[in-house]
């Protein structure tokens, strides 16, 4: 079967350099802050998961916005549904809709984008999410569905938070995915160590997630989830989709990553930035990029 996306476009995507990917993530972060200047968004988690989301949507996933129902596409499930802003922006960058639509319509009555992803208004959302511990088990059903149809090419990418790991339904899915040998399932855990009420180790002490997933029979990668080179190395070398172990990527991230006054601050789980804060934040982000890659 052929993909909707042309091989030239596929080639361009997969030839993105590390610098291009980091620039893409920088653009996403700046857009997030512009949005955050207008509306309350889950900015902390959006920033921590921005690199994961960028590498999945703009680089790794076979997904053609012209054919969002293509049978051979990779599937995406946002289990941490509150990271909808960063997802919608990435969808915009691959051509689902203009970036400014996301910023203008976000949280507006009658708009397509809001606090959580909703398939009733956004055709590029396969699974509506928001309540935690739901997307991941659904992704297992999708992965098994692909297997039943004989599609051993498509993968199911699911993105969870580390706070979400406290939900019992997550562990029902961890056990079953392993039992069903769902090697076409790739679960990212945005491990930013903070949830809405504070430090996760002060709440449920869900430590050593990598060890826990491994004990259930998963293939586990651990990395700095805000280091594009580490993420790229992992997604470039995933086991074949037809392999028999589900893949977990425990991505250690920083909530509010890249913005000096937000990093590791639980109070920036959700919020809105002032004009002045926006300026500081954009300077922080641009400076971080320029220091690494030189001024453009």
């Amino acid at each position, binding site marked *: 079967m052929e993909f909707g996306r042309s091989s030239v476009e596929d080639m361009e995507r997969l030839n993105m350099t590390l610098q291009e990917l980091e620039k893409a993530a920088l653009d996403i972060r700046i857009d997030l802050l512009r949005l955050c200047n207008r509306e309350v968004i889950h900015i902390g988690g959006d920033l921590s998961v921005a690199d994961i989301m960028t590498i999945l949507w703009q680089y790794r996933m076979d997904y053609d916005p012209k054919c969002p129902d293509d049978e051979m596409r990779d599937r995406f499930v946002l289990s941490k549904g509150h990271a909808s802003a960063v997802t919608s922006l990435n969808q915009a960058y691959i051509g689902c809709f203009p970036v400014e639509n996301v910023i203008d319509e976000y949280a507006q009555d009658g708009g397509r984008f809001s606090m959580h992803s909703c*398939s009733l208004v956004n055709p590029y959302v*396969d*699974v*509506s999410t*928001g*309540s935690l*511990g*739901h997307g991941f*088990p*659904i*992704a*297992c*059903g*999708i*992965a*098994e*569905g*692909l297997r*039943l*149809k004989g599609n051993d090419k498509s993968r199911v990418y699911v993105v969870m938070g580390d706070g979400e790991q406290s939900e*019992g*339904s997550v562990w*029902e*899915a961890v*056990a*079953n995915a392993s039992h*069903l040998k769902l090697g076409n399932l790739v679960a990212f855990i945005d491990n930013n160590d903070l949830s809405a009420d504070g430090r996760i180790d002060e709440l449920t002490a869900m430590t050593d997630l990598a060890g826990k997933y491994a004990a259930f029979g998963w293939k586990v990668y651990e990395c700095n989830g805000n280091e594009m080179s580490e993420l790229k190395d992992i997604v470039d070398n995933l086991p074949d989709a037809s392999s028999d172990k589900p893949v977990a990527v425990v991505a250690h991230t920083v909530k509010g990553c890249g913005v000096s006054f937000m990093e590791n601050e639980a109070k920036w789980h959700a919020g809105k930035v002032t004009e002045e804060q926006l300026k500081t934040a954009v300077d922080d982000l641009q400076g971080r990029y320029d220091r690494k890659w030189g001024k453009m």
Partner: protein
Amino acid sequence: MTKLGEADERVIVVNADLMNTSRNRKFVERFPDRSFNVGIAEQFMVSFAAGLAHEGFIPYAFSMAPFMSMRACEQVRTDVAYADLNVRLIATYAGLSGGISGATHWSIEDVGIMRSIPNITILEPSDGIQAVKLLDRTIDHKGPVYMRISVDPVSEIYDQTYEPVIGRASVAAGGDDAAFICSGSVVSAAVEAAAELKKECGISVRVVDMHTIKPLDEEAVLSAAATGYMVVAQDHNIAGGLCEAVSTVLAKDHVSAEVCFAGISDRFVAMAHAPYLYHMFGYDREGLKEKMKNLLGITGQ
């Protein structure tokens, strides 16, 4: 289920360690590749079924009604109903039919829960033939279906020529002096009560078998109300169930009729055999007959 599996290869069975209670072992043996048993994990079972439905399959998920409607409630609502998926939730142990298992295994709230969730079609068959035929109809039905089934053996009401239609009530016994509106295991008790009322009092009571609780057949309710006297009964809490659904129709259409409700009177009781409990709450044959006689003002024998 095996017949459905043969008819359509999109049909899948998902169990949560209740395959034997749910009696779908034959399907599992015949179609092992299309059968999943996720262990005692009802929440996962429902979400997993939703995922399969996202990929175009028609999963039938089996559990006991209390676990399907309460343990997995949010999964049913958010993962299945919100997305309007073709998932079929087949729930045994409806009402008090779990009997001596006690309240943990009864389901006296499930209809109320499911009625308040958009998109879900709720079915409650009254005998084996109706159950099989309604199950057959679910293949082509659009959107989620919740079917609650009693574990009690009931006497057969219909024969093989019977063809139920989802959303349209069946008339299990004809009559124009008064009407029973009921569903599930209560229907056969109402048919017996109606027969005795005819014999003993000479009144002809219609038995409306409301096998589809949602969407409710409002015409059948209004037609029954036109007799002037109705006993509405379901093996469920009166709150939230068929009784409340019927009274909503009456209120909306400003219909006045003498109405009596029979069901669980909003309380928990200790475990006992189902017939004892049905009698206690007054929706066995005897209780239904008594309620109808009171409504009609018939005293003595």
